[in-house]
Protein backbone atom coordinates (compact mmCIF):
# COMPACT_ATOMS: atom_id res chain seq x y z
CA UNK A 1 0.00 0.00 0.00
CA UNK A 2 1.59 3.20 -1.06
CA UNK A 3 0.02 6.54 -1.66
CA UNK A 4 2.07 9.30 -3.19
CA UNK A 5 2.32 13.04 -2.76
CA UNK A 6 4.20 15.20 -5.23
CA UNK A 7 4.97 18.78 -4.34
CA UNK A 8 7.36 20.02 -6.97
CA UNK A 9 8.00 23.73 -6.78
CA UNK A 10 10.53 23.95 -9.57
CA UNK A 11 12.56 21.68 -11.82
CA UNK A 12 14.91 23.00 -14.41
CA UNK A 13 17.76 21.46 -16.39
CA UNK A 14 21.17 22.92 -15.88
CA UNK A 15 23.32 23.61 -18.86
CA UNK A 16 20.56 23.12 -21.41
CA UNK A 17 19.81 25.68 -24.11
CA UNK A 18 16.83 26.86 -22.08
CA UNK A 19 18.38 27.10 -18.64
CA UNK A 20 16.27 29.90 -17.31
CA UNK A 21 12.87 28.33 -17.97
CA UNK A 22 11.76 25.57 -15.62
CA UNK A 23 10.26 22.42 -17.13
CA UNK A 24 8.01 21.81 -14.10
CA UNK A 25 6.69 24.50 -11.78
CA UNK A 26 4.30 24.39 -8.79
CA UNK A 27 3.04 20.91 -9.54
CA UNK A 28 1.06 19.46 -6.67
CA UNK A 29 -0.54 16.03 -6.85
CA UNK A 30 -1.79 13.61 -4.23
CA UNK A 31 -2.47 9.99 -5.23
CA UNK A 32 -4.38 7.49 -3.08
CA UNK A 33 -3.02 3.98 -2.51
CA UNK A 34 -3.81 1.65 -5.44
CA UNK A 35 -5.19 4.47 -7.52
CA UNK A 36 -4.69 4.29 -11.30
CA UNK A 37 -3.82 7.83 -12.38
CA UNK A 38 -3.30 8.84 -15.99
CA UNK A 39 -1.16 11.89 -16.65
CA UNK A 40 -2.19 13.54 -19.91
CA UNK A 41 -0.17 16.27 -21.58
CA UNK A 42 1.32 17.31 -24.89
CA UNK A 43 4.69 15.78 -25.75
CA UNK A 44 7.62 17.73 -24.41
CA UNK A 45 5.66 19.10 -21.47
CA UNK A 46 7.82 17.36 -18.87
CA UNK A 47 5.92 14.13 -18.22
CA UNK A 48 8.99 11.90 -18.49
CA UNK A 49 10.94 14.36 -16.34
CA UNK A 50 8.19 14.06 -13.73
CA UNK A 51 8.35 10.27 -13.72
CA UNK A 52 12.14 10.38 -13.38
CA UNK A 53 11.72 12.60 -10.32
CA UNK A 54 9.21 10.16 -8.82
CA UNK A 55 11.56 7.26 -9.58
CA UNK A 56 14.41 9.03 -7.81
CA UNK A 57 16.56 8.99 -10.97
CA UNK A 58 16.76 12.78 -10.97
CA UNK A 59 17.28 14.42 -7.60
CA UNK A 60 17.92 18.00 -8.67
CA UNK A 61 14.66 19.81 -8.05
CA UNK A 62 13.03 22.07 -5.49
CA UNK A 63 10.20 20.47 -3.58
CA UNK A 64 9.38 17.14 -2.02
CA UNK A 65 8.10 13.71 -2.97
CA UNK A 66 6.58 11.52 -0.24
CA UNK A 67 7.48 8.79 0.35
CA UNK A 68 11.01 9.79 -0.59
CA UNK A 69 12.14 7.55 -3.50
CA UNK A 70 15.64 7.33 -2.01
CA UNK A 71 14.50 6.96 1.58
CA UNK A 72 14.35 3.86 3.73
CA UNK A 73 10.62 3.29 3.25
CA UNK A 74 10.69 3.99 -0.48
CA UNK A 75 7.97 2.12 -2.37
CA UNK A 76 8.99 -0.89 -4.39
CA UNK A 77 9.11 0.59 -7.84
CA UNK A 78 8.25 -0.73 -11.27
CA UNK A 79 9.07 1.52 -14.20
CA UNK A 80 8.03 0.83 -17.78
CA UNK A 81 10.17 3.21 -19.77
CA UNK A 82 9.22 4.65 -23.13
CA UNK A 83 11.72 2.28 -24.77
CA UNK A 84 11.93 -1.26 -23.42
CA UNK A 85 15.44 -0.94 -21.93
CA UNK A 86 16.24 -4.64 -21.89
CA UNK A 87 19.85 -5.81 -21.65
CA UNK A 88 20.52 -7.08 -25.18
CA UNK A 89 23.21 -9.52 -23.96
CA UNK A 90 20.91 -11.32 -21.55
CA UNK A 91 17.96 -13.50 -22.49
CA UNK A 92 14.45 -12.22 -21.90
CA UNK A 93 14.07 -14.38 -18.81
CA UNK A 94 17.43 -13.33 -17.38
CA UNK A 95 16.45 -9.71 -17.93
CA UNK A 96 13.44 -10.20 -15.69
CA UNK A 97 15.15 -12.38 -13.09
CA UNK A 98 17.98 -9.84 -12.70
CA UNK A 99 15.46 -7.25 -11.55
CA UNK A 100 14.02 -9.57 -8.90
CA UNK A 101 15.10 -10.36 -5.36
CA UNK A 102 16.69 -13.78 -4.89
CA UNK A 103 13.65 -15.22 -3.13
CA UNK A 104 11.22 -14.54 -6.00
CA UNK A 105 8.61 -17.05 -7.05
CA UNK A 106 9.55 -18.54 -10.47
CA UNK A 107 6.01 -19.80 -10.98
CA UNK A 108 4.66 -16.25 -10.88
CA UNK A 109 7.17 -15.16 -13.55
CA UNK A 110 6.07 -18.01 -15.79
CA UNK A 111 2.47 -17.03 -15.13
CA UNK A 112 3.25 -13.48 -16.28
CA UNK A 113 5.04 -14.72 -19.41
CA UNK A 114 1.98 -16.82 -20.08
CA UNK A 115 -0.45 -13.88 -19.87
CA UNK A 116 1.62 -11.61 -22.11
CA UNK A 117 2.15 -14.46 -24.58
CA UNK A 118 5.93 -14.59 -24.28
CA UNK A 119 6.30 -18.13 -22.94
CA UNK A 120 8.03 -19.21 -26.15
CA UNK A 121 10.43 -16.27 -26.16
CA UNK A 122 11.85 -16.64 -22.66
CA UNK A 123 15.22 -18.04 -23.76
CA UNK A 124 15.67 -15.59 -26.64
CA UNK A 125 17.90 -12.52 -26.76
CA UNK A 126 15.78 -9.33 -26.86
CA UNK A 127 17.14 -8.01 -30.15
CA UNK A 128 15.68 -11.03 -31.92
CA UNK A 129 12.17 -10.01 -30.84
CA UNK A 130 9.84 -7.41 -32.33
CA UNK A 131 9.51 -4.10 -30.50
CA UNK A 132 6.02 -5.11 -29.38
CA UNK A 133 7.36 -8.26 -27.77
CA UNK A 134 10.19 -6.31 -26.14
CA UNK A 135 7.63 -3.94 -24.67
CA UNK A 136 5.68 -6.86 -23.28
CA UNK A 137 8.88 -8.23 -21.72
CA UNK A 138 9.46 -4.82 -20.12
CA UNK A 139 5.92 -4.97 -18.74
CA UNK A 140 6.58 -8.42 -17.27
CA UNK A 141 9.68 -7.04 -15.57
CA UNK A 142 7.73 -4.17 -14.03
CA UNK A 143 4.93 -6.44 -12.81
CA UNK A 144 7.21 -9.28 -11.72
CA UNK A 145 8.77 -7.28 -8.91
CA UNK A 146 5.28 -6.92 -7.47
CA UNK A 147 5.53 -3.13 -7.24
CA UNK A 148 3.88 -0.81 -4.73
CA UNK A 149 4.16 1.95 -7.28
CA UNK A 150 4.19 1.43 -11.03
CA UNK A 151 5.33 4.17 -13.41
CA UNK A 152 4.50 3.79 -17.07
CA UNK A 153 5.81 6.20 -19.67
CA UNK A 154 3.73 5.87 -22.85
CA UNK A 155 4.24 2.10 -22.90
CA UNK A 156 1.89 1.68 -25.88
CA UNK A 157 3.32 4.30 -28.19
CA UNK A 158 4.27 3.07 -31.69
CA UNK A 159 2.37 -0.20 -31.30
CA UNK A 160 -0.27 -1.18 -33.85
CA UNK A 161 -3.84 -0.70 -32.55
CA UNK A 162 -4.70 -4.39 -31.92
CA UNK A 163 -1.46 -4.98 -29.99
CA UNK A 164 -1.95 -1.74 -28.08
CA UNK A 165 -5.48 -2.82 -27.12
CA UNK A 166 -4.26 -6.25 -26.00
CA UNK A 167 -1.52 -4.75 -23.86
CA UNK A 168 -3.98 -2.24 -22.39
CA UNK A 169 -6.22 -5.09 -21.29
CA UNK A 170 -3.18 -6.84 -19.95
CA UNK A 171 -2.13 -3.87 -17.84
CA UNK A 172 -5.59 -3.74 -16.27
CA UNK A 173 -5.66 -7.48 -15.71
CA UNK A 174 -2.30 -7.49 -13.95
CA UNK A 175 -3.25 -4.40 -11.95
CA UNK A 176 -6.45 -6.10 -10.75
CA UNK A 177 -4.56 -9.29 -9.89
CA UNK A 178 -2.21 -7.41 -7.60
CA UNK A 179 -3.38 -3.85 -6.97
CA UNK A 180 -0.79 -1.10 -6.75
CA UNK A 181 -0.56 2.64 -7.33
CA UNK A 182 -0.09 3.55 -10.99
CA UNK A 183 1.13 6.69 -12.72
CA UNK A 184 0.46 6.20 -16.41
CA UNK A 185 1.79 8.87 -18.74
CA UNK A 186 0.19 9.32 -22.15
CA UNK A 187 -0.73 11.96 -24.70
CA UNK A 188 -3.64 9.84 -25.96
CA UNK A 189 -6.88 10.90 -24.25
CA UNK A 190 -8.88 7.82 -25.30
CA UNK A 191 -6.20 5.55 -23.86
CA UNK A 192 -6.23 7.50 -20.61
CA UNK A 193 -10.04 7.32 -20.34
CA UNK A 194 -9.97 3.58 -21.02
CA UNK A 195 -7.45 2.89 -18.26
CA UNK A 196 -7.58 5.41 -15.42
CA UNK A 197 -9.49 5.99 -12.22
CA UNK A 198 -8.55 9.59 -12.57
CA UNK A 199 -7.11 11.90 -15.21
CA UNK A 200 -4.56 14.58 -14.44
CA UNK A 201 -4.01 17.12 -17.20
CA UNK A 202 -0.66 18.85 -17.41
CA UNK A 203 0.02 22.19 -19.08
CA UNK A 204 2.75 22.78 -21.61
CA UNK A 205 6.17 23.43 -20.02
CA UNK A 206 6.55 24.50 -17.30
CA UNK A 207 4.23 21.64 -16.39
CA UNK A 208 1.60 22.16 -13.73
CA UNK A 209 -1.74 20.49 -13.05
CA UNK A 210 -4.52 22.21 -15.01
CA UNK A 211 -7.23 19.59 -14.70
CA UNK A 212 -8.10 16.76 -12.29
CA UNK A 213 -11.03 14.61 -13.39
CA UNK A 214 -12.30 11.34 -11.85
CA UNK A 215 -13.83 8.79 -14.22
CA UNK A 216 -16.94 7.36 -12.56
CA UNK A 217 -17.81 4.87 -15.33
CA UNK A 218 -16.81 1.28 -14.43
CA UNK A 219 -14.07 -0.02 -16.74
CA UNK A 220 -16.23 -2.84 -18.13
CA UNK A 221 -18.61 -0.23 -19.57
CA UNK A 222 -15.92 1.85 -21.24
CA UNK A 223 -16.41 0.86 -24.87
CA UNK A 224 -15.47 3.16 -27.76
CA UNK A 225 -18.80 5.01 -27.61
CA UNK A 226 -18.56 5.60 -23.86
CA UNK A 227 -14.97 6.80 -24.20
CA UNK A 228 -15.96 9.23 -26.98
CA UNK A 229 -18.90 10.49 -24.95
CA UNK A 230 -16.68 11.07 -21.91
CA UNK A 231 -14.21 12.90 -24.12
CA UNK A 232 -16.82 15.30 -25.46
CA UNK A 233 -18.20 15.83 -21.98
CA UNK A 234 -14.68 16.84 -20.89
CA UNK A 235 -14.47 19.28 -23.77
CA UNK A 236 -17.78 20.92 -22.78
CA UNK A 237 -17.12 21.13 -19.08
CA UNK A 238 -13.43 21.96 -18.96
CA UNK A 239 -12.69 24.88 -21.24
CA UNK A 240 -9.21 25.30 -19.77
CA UNK A 241 -8.19 21.96 -21.32
CA UNK A 242 -9.06 23.07 -24.85
CA UNK A 243 -5.45 22.84 -26.01
CA UNK A 244 -5.10 19.24 -24.83
CA UNK A 245 -8.38 17.77 -26.00
Amino acid sequence: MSGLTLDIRRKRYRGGPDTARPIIENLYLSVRPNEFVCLVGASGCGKTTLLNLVAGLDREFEGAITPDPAGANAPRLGYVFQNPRLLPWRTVRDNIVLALPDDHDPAYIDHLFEIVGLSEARAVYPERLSVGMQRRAALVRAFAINPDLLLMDEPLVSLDPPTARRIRELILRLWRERPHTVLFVTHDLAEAIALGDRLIFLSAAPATVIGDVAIPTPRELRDTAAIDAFGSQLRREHRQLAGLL
Partner: protein
Amino acid sequence: MPTTRDLTIPLLSLIALAAIWQLAAMLAGSSLLPAPMAVFEVLGREVASGRLPHHLGITLLRLAASFGLSMLLGAAIGIALGRSPRLDRFFDSWVVIALNIPALVTIILCYVWFGLVETAAITAVVINKLPNVIVTLREGTRHLNRDLLEMAAVYRFGRVATLRHVIWPQLFPFVLAAARTGLALIWKIILVVELLGRSNGMGYQLHLYFQMFDVAGILAYSIAFIGVVQLIEELLLRPLDRRAQRWRR
Protein backbone atom coordinates in the same frame (compact mmCIF):
# COMPACT_ATOMS: atom_id res chain seq x y z
CA MET B 1 29.59 -19.34 -38.04
CA PRO B 2 30.40 -22.80 -39.50
CA THR B 3 32.79 -24.90 -37.42
CA THR B 4 35.03 -25.88 -40.34
CA ARG B 5 36.04 -22.95 -42.47
CA ASP B 6 37.00 -23.38 -46.10
CA LEU B 7 40.79 -23.30 -46.05
CA THR B 8 41.42 -23.69 -49.79
CA ILE B 9 42.05 -20.04 -50.58
CA PRO B 10 44.24 -19.20 -47.56
CA LEU B 11 46.25 -22.34 -48.22
CA LEU B 12 46.72 -21.52 -51.90
CA SER B 13 47.81 -18.00 -51.02
CA LEU B 14 50.42 -19.32 -48.56
CA ILE B 15 51.77 -21.69 -51.21
CA ALA B 16 51.96 -18.80 -53.66
CA LEU B 17 53.90 -16.76 -51.11
CA ALA B 18 56.35 -19.61 -50.56
CA ALA B 19 56.76 -20.00 -54.33
CA ILE B 20 57.59 -16.31 -54.78
CA TRP B 21 60.06 -16.58 -51.92
CA GLN B 22 61.66 -19.66 -53.48
CA LEU B 23 61.93 -17.93 -56.84
CA ALA B 24 63.46 -14.80 -55.31
CA ALA B 25 65.96 -16.93 -53.38
CA MET B 26 66.96 -18.79 -56.54
CA LEU B 27 67.42 -15.52 -58.46
CA ALA B 28 69.42 -13.95 -55.64
CA GLY B 29 71.57 -17.03 -55.09
CA SER B 30 72.96 -15.59 -51.87
CA SER B 31 73.07 -16.71 -48.24
CA LEU B 32 71.48 -13.33 -47.44
CA LEU B 33 68.21 -14.59 -48.88
CA PRO B 34 67.95 -18.30 -48.04
CA ALA B 35 65.28 -20.50 -49.64
CA PRO B 36 62.25 -21.59 -47.59
CA MET B 37 63.58 -25.11 -47.05
CA ALA B 38 66.85 -23.82 -45.61
CA VAL B 39 64.97 -21.63 -43.18
CA PHE B 40 62.74 -24.48 -42.06
CA GLU B 41 65.83 -26.63 -41.53
CA VAL B 42 67.23 -24.00 -39.17
CA LEU B 43 63.86 -23.76 -37.49
CA GLY B 44 63.78 -27.53 -36.91
CA ARG B 45 67.31 -27.53 -35.58
CA GLU B 46 66.67 -24.64 -33.17
CA VAL B 47 63.47 -26.27 -31.88
CA ALA B 48 65.21 -29.63 -31.41
CA SER B 49 68.13 -28.08 -29.56
CA GLY B 50 65.68 -26.41 -27.19
CA ARG B 51 67.16 -22.97 -27.82
CA LEU B 52 64.14 -21.57 -29.61
CA PRO B 53 61.54 -22.85 -27.08
CA HIS B 54 63.70 -21.43 -24.28
CA HIS B 55 63.97 -17.92 -25.71
CA LEU B 56 60.41 -17.94 -27.00
CA GLY B 57 59.19 -18.99 -23.55
CA ILE B 58 61.04 -16.14 -21.86
CA THR B 59 59.65 -13.62 -24.32
CA LEU B 60 56.15 -15.03 -23.81
CA LEU B 61 56.51 -14.66 -20.04
CA ARG B 62 57.55 -11.04 -20.43
CA LEU B 63 54.69 -10.55 -22.82
CA ALA B 64 52.15 -12.02 -20.40
CA ALA B 65 53.43 -9.94 -17.49
CA SER B 66 53.53 -6.63 -19.33
CA PHE B 67 50.27 -7.31 -21.16
CA GLY B 68 48.44 -8.20 -17.95
CA LEU B 69 49.79 -5.21 -16.08
CA SER B 70 49.04 -2.70 -18.79
CA MET B 71 45.52 -4.05 -19.35
CA LEU B 72 44.66 -3.91 -15.64
CA LEU B 73 46.19 -0.49 -15.01
CA GLY B 74 44.95 0.94 -18.29
CA ALA B 75 41.40 -0.30 -17.73
CA ALA B 76 41.30 1.14 -14.21
CA ILE B 77 42.61 4.53 -15.32
CA GLY B 78 40.52 4.57 -18.51
CA ILE B 79 37.30 3.80 -16.65
CA ALA B 80 38.07 6.44 -14.04
CA LEU B 81 38.71 9.07 -16.72
CA GLY B 82 35.62 8.04 -18.66
CA ARG B 83 33.43 8.43 -15.60
CA SER B 84 34.76 11.75 -14.36
CA PRO B 85 34.91 14.63 -16.86
CA ARG B 86 36.91 16.72 -14.38
CA LEU B 87 39.60 14.10 -13.96
CA ASP B 88 39.63 13.64 -17.71
CA ARG B 89 40.09 17.36 -18.37
CA PHE B 90 43.09 17.39 -16.05
CA PHE B 91 44.79 14.22 -17.26
CA ASP B 92 43.92 14.42 -20.93
CA SER B 93 47.13 16.24 -21.85
CA TRP B 94 49.16 13.65 -19.91
CA VAL B 95 47.57 10.90 -21.95
CA VAL B 96 48.28 12.75 -25.19
CA ILE B 97 51.93 13.21 -24.23
CA ALA B 98 52.24 9.56 -23.20
CA LEU B 99 50.71 8.47 -26.52
CA ASN B 100 53.35 10.40 -28.43
CA ILE B 101 56.52 9.45 -26.58
CA PRO B 102 58.55 7.28 -28.97
CA ALA B 103 58.82 3.70 -27.72
CA LEU B 104 62.60 3.84 -27.99
CA VAL B 105 62.78 6.83 -25.64
CA THR B 106 60.85 5.09 -22.85
CA ILE B 107 62.95 1.97 -23.27
CA ILE B 108 66.23 3.87 -23.06
CA LEU B 109 65.08 5.96 -20.12
CA CYS B 110 63.84 2.90 -18.21
CA TYR B 111 67.20 1.19 -18.65
CA VAL B 112 69.08 4.36 -17.71
CA TRP B 113 67.00 4.98 -14.60
CA PHE B 114 66.39 1.44 -13.35
CA GLY B 115 69.44 -0.35 -14.77
CA LEU B 116 69.52 -3.31 -17.16
CA VAL B 117 67.08 -5.38 -15.10
CA GLU B 118 63.87 -7.28 -15.70
CA THR B 119 61.74 -4.64 -13.96
CA ALA B 120 63.02 -1.98 -16.32
CA ALA B 121 62.18 -4.14 -19.33
CA ILE B 122 58.63 -4.84 -18.18
CA THR B 123 58.07 -1.22 -17.11
CA ALA B 124 59.19 0.03 -20.51
CA VAL B 125 56.70 -2.20 -22.31
CA VAL B 126 53.87 -1.32 -19.92
CA ILE B 127 54.48 2.42 -20.35
CA ASN B 128 54.36 2.03 -24.09
CA LYS B 129 51.12 0.10 -24.07
CA LEU B 130 49.29 1.88 -21.24
CA PRO B 131 48.07 5.07 -22.98
CA ASN B 132 46.54 2.99 -25.75
CA VAL B 133 44.48 0.96 -23.27
CA ILE B 134 43.49 4.09 -21.35
CA VAL B 135 42.18 5.82 -24.46
CA THR B 136 40.19 2.78 -25.62
CA LEU B 137 38.57 2.09 -22.26
CA ARG B 138 37.89 5.78 -21.66
CA GLU B 139 35.99 5.81 -24.94
CA GLY B 140 34.05 2.71 -23.93
CA THR B 141 33.15 4.15 -20.55
CA ARG B 142 31.97 7.41 -22.08
CA HIS B 143 29.60 5.47 -24.30
CA LEU B 144 27.97 3.44 -21.55
CA ASN B 145 24.24 3.41 -22.16
CA ARG B 146 22.56 5.76 -19.67
CA ASP B 147 19.13 4.25 -20.25
CA LEU B 148 20.31 0.86 -19.08
CA LEU B 149 22.14 2.31 -16.08
CA GLU B 150 18.94 4.09 -15.05
CA MET B 151 17.00 0.87 -15.49
CA ALA B 152 19.48 -0.93 -13.22
CA ALA B 153 19.12 1.83 -10.63
CA VAL B 154 15.31 1.72 -10.67
CA TYR B 155 15.25 -2.07 -10.33
CA ARG B 156 17.90 -1.94 -7.59
CA PHE B 157 20.46 -4.19 -9.22
CA GLY B 158 23.12 -3.11 -6.72
CA ARG B 159 26.77 -2.39 -7.48
CA VAL B 160 28.00 -5.88 -8.27
CA ALA B 161 25.14 -6.92 -10.53
CA THR B 162 25.23 -3.57 -12.34
CA LEU B 163 28.94 -4.00 -13.00
CA ARG B 164 28.59 -7.60 -14.09
CA HIS B 165 25.41 -7.48 -16.16
CA VAL B 166 25.13 -3.88 -17.35
CA ILE B 167 28.60 -2.31 -17.51
CA TRP B 168 30.96 -5.20 -18.25
CA PRO B 169 29.12 -6.46 -21.37
CA GLN B 170 29.29 -2.95 -22.78
CA LEU B 171 33.00 -2.55 -22.02
CA PHE B 172 33.98 -6.01 -23.21
CA PRO B 173 34.28 -5.15 -26.93
CA PHE B 174 36.53 -2.24 -25.98
CA VAL B 175 38.65 -4.48 -23.76
CA LEU B 176 38.96 -6.91 -26.64
CA ALA B 177 39.94 -4.13 -29.05
CA ALA B 178 42.56 -2.91 -26.58
CA ALA B 179 43.85 -6.46 -26.20
CA ARG B 180 44.15 -6.93 -29.97
CA THR B 181 45.96 -3.72 -30.77
CA GLY B 182 47.91 -4.06 -27.54
CA LEU B 183 49.20 -7.49 -28.34
CA ALA B 184 50.39 -6.39 -31.75
CA LEU B 185 52.13 -3.39 -30.20
CA ILE B 186 53.75 -5.31 -27.35
CA TRP B 187 55.08 -8.01 -29.67
CA LYS B 188 57.02 -5.38 -31.55
CA ILE B 189 58.26 -3.37 -28.60
CA ILE B 190 59.27 -6.32 -26.47
CA LEU B 191 61.85 -7.39 -29.07
CA VAL B 192 63.48 -3.97 -29.02
CA VAL B 193 63.52 -4.06 -25.22
CA GLU B 194 65.26 -7.43 -25.27
CA LEU B 195 67.65 -6.37 -27.95
CA LEU B 196 68.77 -3.33 -25.99
CA GLY B 197 69.12 -4.63 -22.49
CA ARG B 198 68.44 -8.34 -21.92
CA SER B 199 70.62 -11.40 -22.37
CA ASN B 200 67.83 -13.76 -23.35
CA GLY B 201 64.54 -13.79 -25.26
CA MET B 202 63.67 -13.56 -28.93
CA GLY B 203 65.01 -10.04 -29.29
CA TYR B 204 68.37 -11.08 -27.89
CA GLN B 205 68.56 -14.05 -30.28
CA LEU B 206 67.66 -11.88 -33.27
CA HIS B 207 70.38 -9.46 -32.25
CA LEU B 208 72.85 -12.34 -32.13
CA TYR B 209 71.92 -13.53 -35.62
CA PHE B 210 72.09 -9.97 -36.89
CA GLN B 211 75.69 -9.67 -35.69
CA MET B 212 76.50 -12.91 -37.51
CA PHE B 213 74.52 -11.84 -40.57
CA ASP B 214 72.64 -15.16 -40.28
CA VAL B 215 69.48 -14.37 -42.24
CA ALA B 216 68.20 -17.96 -42.10
CA GLY B 217 68.26 -17.79 -38.30
CA ILE B 218 66.47 -14.45 -38.27
CA LEU B 219 63.76 -15.76 -40.59
CA ALA B 220 63.39 -19.01 -38.63
CA TYR B 221 62.79 -17.12 -35.39
CA SER B 222 60.38 -14.76 -37.15
CA ILE B 223 58.33 -17.67 -38.46
CA ALA B 224 58.09 -19.21 -35.00
CA PHE B 225 56.99 -15.84 -33.73
CA ILE B 226 54.30 -15.34 -36.36
CA GLY B 227 53.00 -18.81 -35.65
CA VAL B 228 52.58 -18.12 -31.94
CA VAL B 229 50.79 -14.82 -32.60
CA GLN B 230 48.38 -16.58 -34.93
CA LEU B 231 47.73 -19.27 -32.34
CA ILE B 232 46.87 -16.67 -29.69
CA GLU B 233 44.54 -14.96 -32.13
CA GLU B 234 42.79 -18.16 -33.18
CA LEU B 235 42.62 -19.94 -29.84
CA LEU B 236 42.02 -17.02 -27.51
CA LEU B 237 40.88 -13.77 -29.05
CA ARG B 238 38.58 -15.08 -31.76
CA PRO B 239 36.55 -17.37 -29.47
CA LEU B 240 36.22 -14.51 -26.97
CA ASP B 241 35.05 -12.25 -29.75
CA ARG B 242 32.44 -14.76 -30.92
CA ARG B 243 31.23 -15.21 -27.36
CA ALA B 244 30.77 -11.48 -26.96
CA GLN B 245 28.79 -11.30 -30.21
CA ARG B 246 26.45 -14.21 -29.73
CA TRP B 247 23.45 -12.16 -28.57
CA ARG B 248 23.45 -9.95 -31.65
CA ARG B 249 20.91 -10.41 -34.38
